[in-house]
């Protein structure tokens, strides 16, 4: 049975690794729903957050294939209840259409959104939240004419105190006092 999994991958910062990781999905004809990359809390170690819709068995296999990549340190698959996650969305609306009614204040309050920029021509609204929430705001704003809309990929952190990776790396370093790396 398919369900949503968030894969987190910790890696060295090496050129082409993103390609190696996405090949694992394309080869199996699995669509990536969302992907973000950024440096993790550990200096020099990068964290990929990838959302896929798959079976648990497939998610397990994907993680093993990721870890098989030389520059990947560890990879994990996580379910909804193991993580906190957010996406950010931005909406550009024609300012004049917003001014025609007085509903905009209610919308901004209700959705905990904020106005980033306001010009005579357009207004940019920003909202963070789950996809369902940013989508709902999109639907609300539709009648005003959404000129532009963008949503980021998911960022996620686990409900554990420290990064999954920290203790693993500490143990590794203990075993290899004199690491040799390119």
């Amino acid at each position, binding site marked *: 049975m398919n369900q949503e999994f968030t894969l987190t991958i910790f*890696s*060295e910062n090496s*050129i*082409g690794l993103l*390609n*190696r990781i996405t*090949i694992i999905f394309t*080869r199996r004809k699995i669509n990536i729903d969302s992907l973000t990359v950024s440096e993790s809390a550990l200096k020099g170690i990068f964290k990929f957050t990838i959302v896929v819709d798959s079976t648990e*068995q497939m998610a*397990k*296999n994907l993680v*093993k*294939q990721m*870890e*098989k990549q*030389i*520059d*990947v*340190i560890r990879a994990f698959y996580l379910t909804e209840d193991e993580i906190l996650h957010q996406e950010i969305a931005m909406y550009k609306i024609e300012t004049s259409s917003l001014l025609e009614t007085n509903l905009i204040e209610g919308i901004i309050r209700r959705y905990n959104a904020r106005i980033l920029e306001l010009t005579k021509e357009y207004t940019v609204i920003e909202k963070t939240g789950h996809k369902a929430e940013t989508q709902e705001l999109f639907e609300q704003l539709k009648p005003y004419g959404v000129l532009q809309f963008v949503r980021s990929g998911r960022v996620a952190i686990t409900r554990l105190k420290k990064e999954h990776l920290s203790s693993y*790396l500490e143990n*590794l*370093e203990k075993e*290899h006092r*004199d*690491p*040799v*790396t*390119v």
Partner: protein
Amino acid sequence: MGTQTIEEKKVAQTETVNVTGSDALLLSLITEGASTIFGYPGGAIMPLYDKLMDYKDKLKHILTRHEQGAIHAAQGFARVTGKPGVCFATSGPGATNLITGIADAYMDSTPLVCITGQVFSALLGTDGFQETDVVGVTMPVTKWNYQVTKAEEIPEAIAKAFYIACSGRPGPVVIDVTKDAMMNKCDYSYKRCKYIRSYIPEPRVNNVQIEAAAKLINEAKKPLAVVGQGVILGNAEKELLDFVNKSGVAVATTLLGLSAIPNNHAQYTGTVGMHGNAGPNIKTNDCDLLIAIGMRFDDRVTGVVAKYAPQAKKIHFEIDKAEINKIIQVDAPVLGNVGETLAQILDYIQPKQYPEWLAEFKACDKVEYDRVIKEELHPADGKINMGEVIEVLNDSAKGDAIICTDVGQHQMFAMRYCNFNSTRTWVTSGGLGTMGFGLPAAMGAQFGCPDKKVVSISGDGGFQMTMQELGTIAYNKLPVKMIVLNNNFLGMVRQWQELFFEERYSNTPISSPDFVALAASYKIEGETVLDRSTLKDAIERMYNSEGAYILEIKVTAKGNVFPMVPAGASVSDILYGDENKK
């Protein structure tokens, strides 16, 4: 600056010297123990080829007639020696001609270090002459790859390449080096790579897993071990033999596991898979414990997965954790190098024997002999059969030759009927099934083992794919014995057309040149065998010839390989080929 100056300074000592990137690369190879390089020069790699002349006494470069020949030769070399194969190719077409071999090595876990030339770094991404994104193109088929654009990166990149190619589950590595990186100077010192924090080549052996597996083995009534190439790659032949002897289990091998255990061993029951033996295939679905050792449950081994040994408990000895539960769910995974895990489990298993269980395999052998083997190996009349040729070759080779095959029917006959006494004497393209592999692989095997007899067995189709390497064989006076089983068909595809495509022989009849005359033009000896009565003497002449020898044997046109587990069938649903005759 003379060769010896640099070399003596560098290889012997650890001080830093200032050299070109090409020098650094070649010195790195020497330090890693490379001695033979297969390759082909071209524009972007010219600085490296120029410097090769200064290291002639340490590095032997074999000029093949095509880059595909070079990489298959490197594969053959690696498979028989256990050392990494090294090959050179230039940018663009040179590099893309390596791809088939890289993909083949990736599937069959062969350690290779491929060095490709690349255009000047300033030209990268500009569609320069002979520019191909080699790192991009080889990414899906390499264990690791890396582009070097600065001379000073070379020693570390090469050190990492050898470490990654050879450690853990081996595989091919590509290092793409820009022309300016070869030409520029750098301070060279070499430090072998022994650790990369993001790469754990061998999972640590877990005693809990060992004990769990041992418990299953001790409780089993009908255990069957299926041995893959992992045993050979892990140099674990002795550990396997000890395990087999003590545990008493029935043993089968996969296509690539052949030669890991002598096939005259009392508990050896044959090969598994599509054209494997009836016994181990049928008994896969009858055993109560399946012990997979260094194998990966390829679809040619399992048949339809849902019907693969559903009744059995399963143990999987494996170094690559991504293989655990990838295809077949197992009860007891045992992660680690099989050399270690098999040695460790020995203390936990009870000595046992299973005479009745082994007798069941003998009963299957009898059926297979009566329905398939007897007619294949001892036909009353008609043209020569492929299987017969292998049987006669056994009389000369006595299980001691290195057998290299191409891909197709002859390969399956060789797998079924060749005898093997010792390890690393069987070189074949398994996972990728690369036609054209056999001849250049045999060439590389001969370079790797100059004192052994190397026999290449090909079909008329596959031989024509890489037969330009006759030039390399002739020039280097390699005593490779070449058997071409000529049925004027692309036999395996024809067999499938006969069985599954209503005998519509689309593009499988194939013509050939006069192979013996062709070889003669390279001053290679040979003869054609048309008749059974002359087969034995001809094979003996070939086998005992001083130099290279080609033996073209005209075989029956529409011979089929049986038994056969058809695609999509269960391994115990075997066709013997005589079903319609009954």
